[in-house]
């Protein structure tokens, strides 16, 4: 397939600039010397909220409407949780959950 170099370059450039914009905007908006009190508060608590939403975002492809009704994802999440309660070791928990997921998506 023949690619259009100038066009492709523009698309990548736009994606890069827009991505940087979304990451930089908070720093631009709150660039003044004194950080507002509510930003300090949010910086302490918002990550805990975002991490939960990020888990949901990661699993958004789960299909609940047909067999196996998201069982692979749900069981694998429980496997991460269970493994973490037992092992208290991040690496063990991640490997346990991922192996569980890879097996279940092939078996179910």
């Amino acid at each position: 397939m023949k690619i259009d170099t100038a066009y492709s370059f523009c698309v990548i450039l736009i994606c890069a600039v827009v991505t940087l914009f979304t990451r930089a905007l908070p720093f631009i908006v709150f660039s003044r010397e004194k950080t507002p009190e509510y930003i300090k508060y949010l910086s302490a608590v918002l990550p805990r909220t975002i991490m939960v939403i990020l888990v949901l975002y990661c699993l958004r492809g789960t299909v609940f409407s047909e067999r196996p009704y998201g069982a692979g994802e749900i069981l694998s999440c429980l496997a991460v949780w269970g493994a973490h309660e037992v092992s208290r070791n991040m690496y063990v928990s991640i490997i346990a959950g991922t192996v569980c997921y890879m097996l279940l998506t092939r078996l179910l």
Partner: protein
Amino acid sequence: MKELRFALKKTVPVLFAYLFIGISFGMMMYTAGYSWIWSFLSALFVYAGSLQIVMVSLLKAGAGLMTCALTAFFINARHLFYGIAFIERFRAMGWRSPYMVFSLTDETYSILVSADYGEGLNRDRAAFFIALTNHIYWIIGCLTGSLAGRILPWDMEGIEFSAAAFFIVVVIEQWEKSASKLPACVGLIVGALFFLILGPDRFLIPSLVSSVLILMLLGDRIRIKEGMTDEN
């Protein structure tokens, strides 16, 4: 270089997810007729997993530049909320600060908000190495997919779950460490609610916006529970 060693240890959970997603992206680029240099440039300058994968479809379809810009914005709009946690932290990082802002992906964000640096480490240098190491994994993944995707025989489908598993571990550890469980509960309830109402493709941004508003409303309760004082 104990900071680099620390970063290498902290970024292991991201390694597999980035290699796998990067390889998928590289293979898609290869199939679409793009040589490794394009994958390399994307990995280096765009550095956003889900957007890069969508970008391949945009390139293949010859989508208009405005469409590309809007798509990129909406896919990455969640990043608007990440910087809030690091306004002061990154500002204090001097020459490293622009790179820290540029490289604030989901995965780097989650390591940085959960990392316990302990004593005797230069925190700024450690955070910088965490960001840089993840970026390098991503570049290696994208290049590998482009150059060798065709000859990789293994079926690694599903290994991307390691990113979700890592996020779950972070949630568990934050839950146990924090006095107020409200922030996590808000995320779960609001996220699940919008997921049910708006569906998987549109729930993210409304969830984030509503969560910020609810956290602001619950501010006094959470502050008391967390023992946050009002001065400075």
